[in-house]
């Protein structure tokens, strides 16, 4: 009995420590610290520490994922709040809903892959490299689980520094990497400072609106009052937040930093950049832009959709003329992320859940493509389509993976890209013509304030373009006439200057295959059985869609549908307050004929009617 209760206590204690969210941040940081204080430059020890520091989070994630209740509309779980600077409303506050959990899962999965992928690529300043890689891991995990906007911003900002250092010190060409790193830093830093201003404005209006006149930076608390801002305020906040998040995504006019950063970044840096960092932008849009300014989102949805579509098509066409494979994949990221944003601004459950799914899928397939390109680059020290070709003959395993992941990226039915691309486009298609009947339809199907079939059609051309440029790339690099630098057919790098890589075999070694297999398996599983993951996304997406219906569309409709920001300023004196909904339950909203959520994913059952709708992010 005695021992049992002691064991029980220990068990509870361990339970309390492990089944919380902070370990996801603290474990990588702790190992980064261990690496920093390691004496000497024993490469094996440093790599081992880095590997342990990324594998433990994977195990931790598996444990908490098992206990996590993925469906049922519970929303935030593993809520942990501890006091920090209560006097001004700052708290250490962590929680995760299913969206956060999926993205955390992607982050921790890519961790060990990045560490292992750097084994032969990075041979100098190992300590600095792995240290910052682990810090980056911790910061990215932190972004997804933070529930205090200052904490969120801290992590968001702190992902910049490690990647800046990784590109600046370990980039592929010493001549250009500094410029690329600086451009990356300046772009994203400027954007995020403006986003901070927007977030602080939201906190301020909460303070002035709240009864206690107290500051709070809690996301849920802020989301409960932010939508009450006047329309003009919402527009300002909308653009301020977008300045930060759209640069990170990156959306069409502000995407120019990305190809440069990708080209110069080391392989692991590219994998993380494409896999997770770009998702910080879309996650931010999902969490803050949609959650804080629903009316402005409704108003500007077509604008954003047009920008995304331009991005999809324009970046796709740029891809077509690239000769650098890595740059090609980088531009394809811009194109793909356009679907993500399009799905979000469809503002309906289908589009939003498709967009979140796309975040995961893009992370898997594009991350793997960058890994594959890195593997070739390690062997031949070139990424140019003019110098590489027909690798299927000498690297069959590599070529098979390349074809597989390219197909996943193209969106071949049966692989993961298809489902999410379909959902994003479908969301845009269905968004039209359901919300307003004020006779202001500009084109058949395209309604003012929402997207419509025409948007879906325009985005659909992107699918064709994607197929064109990716198959064009495959045609040269995999199936074309054999062409490798340093002699035909020999297949290994003869360059004496790089004999450190000479130990790499012609085709992939076991380590490299091991890196790609889990990604490939996930691509296949998510492609064949997207049902479970879509079901977990149903509630958050549905909540956001309904939230926007209530506080965005209905509100604008009540005001004046053709309201412009200019003449809203005159009305600002008497802003129309939408029915204020406190807490998760609201009869009015469920009773409202919400035409937007009539469509349900074909692979999932109808949304449970008992799932109580609640504003996004509130606890």
């Amino acid at each position, binding site marked *: 009995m005695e021992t049992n209760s002691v064991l029980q206590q220990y068990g509870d204690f361990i339970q309390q420590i492990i089944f919380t969210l902070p370990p996801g941040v603290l474990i990588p940081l702790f190992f980064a610290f261990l690496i*920093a204080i390691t004496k000497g430059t024993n490469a094996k020890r440093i790599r081992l520490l880095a590997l342990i520091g990324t594998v433990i989070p994977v195990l931790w994630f598996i444990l908490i994922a098992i206990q996590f209740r993925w469906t049922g509309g519970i929303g935030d779980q593993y809520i942990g709040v501890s006091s*920090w*600077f*209560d*006097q*001004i409303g700052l708290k250490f506050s962590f929680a995760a809903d299913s969206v956060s959990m999926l993205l955390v899962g992607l982050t921790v999965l890519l961790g060990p892959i990045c560490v292992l992928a750097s084994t032969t690529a990075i041979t100098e300043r190992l300590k600095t490299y792995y240290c910052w890689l682990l810090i980056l891991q911790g910061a990215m995990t932190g972004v997804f689980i933070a529930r205090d906007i200052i904490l969120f911003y801290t992590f968001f900002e702190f992902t910049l520094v490690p990647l800046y250092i990784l590109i600046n010190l370990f980039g592929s060409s010493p001549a250009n990497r500094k410029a690329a790193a600086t451009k990356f830093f300046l772009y994203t830093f400027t954007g995020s400072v403006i986003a901070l*201003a927007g977030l*602080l404005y939201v906190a301020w209006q909460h303070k002035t609106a709240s009864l206690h006149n107290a*500051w709070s930076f809690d996301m849920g608390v802020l989301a409960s009052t932010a939508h009450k801002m006047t329309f003009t305020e919402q527009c300002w906040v909308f653009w301020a937040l977008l300045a930060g998040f759209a640069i990170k995504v990156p959306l069409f006019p502000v995407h120019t930093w990305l190809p440069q950063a990708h080209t110069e970044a080391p392989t692991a840096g590219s994998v993380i950049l494409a896999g997770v960092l770009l998702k910080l932008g879309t996650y931010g849009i999902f969490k803050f832009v949609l959650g804080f300014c629903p009316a402005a989102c409704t108003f500007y949805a077509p604008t954003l959709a047009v920008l995304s579509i331009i991005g999809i098509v324009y970046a796709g066409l740029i891809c077509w003329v690239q000769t650098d494979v890595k740059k090609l994949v980088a531009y394809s990221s811009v194109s793909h992320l356009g679907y993500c944003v399009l799905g979000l601004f469809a503002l309906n459950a289908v589009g939003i859940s498709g967009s979140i799914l796309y975040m995961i899928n893009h992370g898997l397939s594009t991350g793997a493509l960058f890994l594959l390109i890195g593997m070739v680059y390690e062997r031949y020290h070139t990424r140019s389509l003019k110098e590489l070709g027909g690798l299927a003959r000498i690297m069959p395993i590599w070529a098979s993976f390349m074809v597989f992941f390219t197909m996943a990226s193209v969106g071949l039915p049966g692989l993961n890209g298809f489902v999410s691309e379909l959902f994003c486009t479908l969301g845009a298609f269905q968004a039209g013509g359901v919300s307003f009947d004020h006779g202001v339809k500009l084109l058949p199907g395209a309604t003012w304030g929402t997207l419509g079939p025409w948007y879906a059609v325009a985005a659909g051309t992107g699918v064709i373009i994607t197929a064109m440029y990716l198959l064009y790339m495959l045609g040269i690099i995999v199936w074309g006439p054999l062409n490798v630098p340093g002699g035909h057919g020999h297949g290994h790098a003869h360059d004496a200057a790089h004999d450190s890589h000479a130990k790499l075999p012609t085709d992939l070694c076991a380590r490299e295959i091991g890196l790609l297999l889990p990604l490939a398996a996930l691509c296949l599983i998510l492609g064949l059985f997207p049902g479970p993951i879509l079901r977990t996304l149903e509630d958050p997406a549905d909540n956001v869609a309904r939230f926007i219906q209530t506080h965005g569309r209905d509100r604008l409709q009540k005001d004046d549908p053709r309201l412009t920001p200019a003449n809203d300023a005159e009305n600002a004196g008497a802003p129309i307050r939408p029915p204020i909904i406190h807490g998760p339950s609201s009869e009015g909203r469920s009773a409202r004929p919400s035409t937007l959520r009539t469509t349900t994913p074909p692979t999932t059952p109808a949304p449970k009617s008992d799932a109580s709708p609640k504003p996004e992010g509130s606890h």
Partner: protein
Amino acid sequence: MDSKLTLLWPEITLFITTCVVMILGQSKHKDSRNLAPWLCAIGLVASGLFAWLGRDISAASSVFVDHPWLGKLIKGASIPSTTLLPNLPYYGKMIVAAVGLVMLPMMAGSADGDLEASAGHGKPWDALRSTRGEFYSFFLFSLSGLMLCSSANDLIFLFLALELTSLPTYVMVALSTSRNRSMEAGVKYFFLGALGAAVFLYGFTLIYGAAGSTHFDAIARIFAAQIANGGLNQLALLGIVLALLGMCFKIAAVPMHFYTPDVYQGASASVAGFLAFVPKAAGFFAIMLLCSLVGWGFGDNHQHLPDALRTMLWVLAALTMTVGNVLAIMQNSVKRMLAYSSIAHSGYMLVGIVAGPGPDGAPFSRNGLAAVLFYLGSYAVMTLGAFAVLASLQRKNANGKMEEADDIDDLRGLALTRPLLGWTMVLSAMGLLGLPPLLGFLGKVPLFTSGIGAGEVPLVIVLGINSAIAAYYYLRLAYVCFIEQPETLPSAPKVELSEFFKARRMTGVLSMAAVVGLALSAGYLADMAQLGATYQPVHTFHPPATPEPAADEAAPAASNAEPLPG
């Protein structure tokens, strides 16, 4: 009288230590002279402890209160000196003792460094040429003056305390290195300091002329009466304006900031670090006390200073931070950069003064005075870290003599070659920049929130823009330490560790520990600052039942009859 003495226990402890250090400094034996810093540490710990025990009678545990003599001591110490800012002394003294302790290791080798270095190389030890005893006693004199500033309740008291703070610093600057430059810096600092003192002394006399009393409580009451009867005496306003202008010298704010870079560069890094905190803290204590004389009861919502003062401080704050940050960008000397950053930070803190303590019972986020006190402590530990790094390094100059590292290129690749120093520099720079979640950010947030709460939104926007400008040079510091490769050219001056780096590095380590510790437990420091910034406007401690003797006479002469509160 008895209670007055017990209130001053922290200062008395420091003063006794100072005397012991000074006498020991005359000893012929090297060993007893070497005791000086240790004695200083003991004195600082003891006085900090006294200040902490007396901070709040209700917060002290009953064990101490019931103690036969300690309890008496505490009860005595809890009697406030001025009824306007009754708790300022406790916070002030505690923070002075704590920052003094952090600063102390950095002072190693400041006084007779050359002498010790030559003695180390076999030359005989010349007791007569050693200035160690004097240096450390001046150090403590200045700190006890600073403590007295925070507990001043009288114009003359305040003036003497300010002079006790400043006079030793003039000597410390001149003694700090053997170069002529520190002599120059010392003389420059002395003359401009004297000018500043003359300005605020003139202001004090005008205040006395307008109020007819030197006691703060009495002055505040008379001013309140004047305001109730048709407005503040113009003489009083002029007096306060002049006194504040004089304080601008102490805090290195705009019209009186010109000396700062030259003096910081001329002094050794250790003494420059001292200058970055001690006169600034003294100036801010004095500014808070002077502003509390008229109080923050004006404006539409009765939460502002009188319009003239508000406008002046507003403009000074905006100018100070802008000038400081813009000029800091152009510097290549790290000391000058930190000097301009010190100017800029004074500007930030003036925002808190403009915002004022807010309405009665305002929360911490609205209390500008608490924000200033909080920021003062955070700024001190962050900037000391940066100065400690500079003090730990030396390089060979063109004449082949060793001198302290100062050029920004001396820091190249510091995080690679000397990780501890490099990281200290990076953390300090990032903290001063105000990067979340570091201490500098946590310190800046209350300044923002209190400014917004007081309705000074344009000033807060200026503050925000300045924080962005400041990013340029702080990031440059971090970049140089972190990204750049150490200089490998043979022509470049070789940077090595100073002989006293072990002790001086301690300051860096302590300040980093404080930065991390305070960032994690910011709530605790905020509570203390909130307590320290307790502000009681005149009407609350002077019930209307007692009619103002000077209520119907605006003439200041009549108020001579005003009895001084015991």
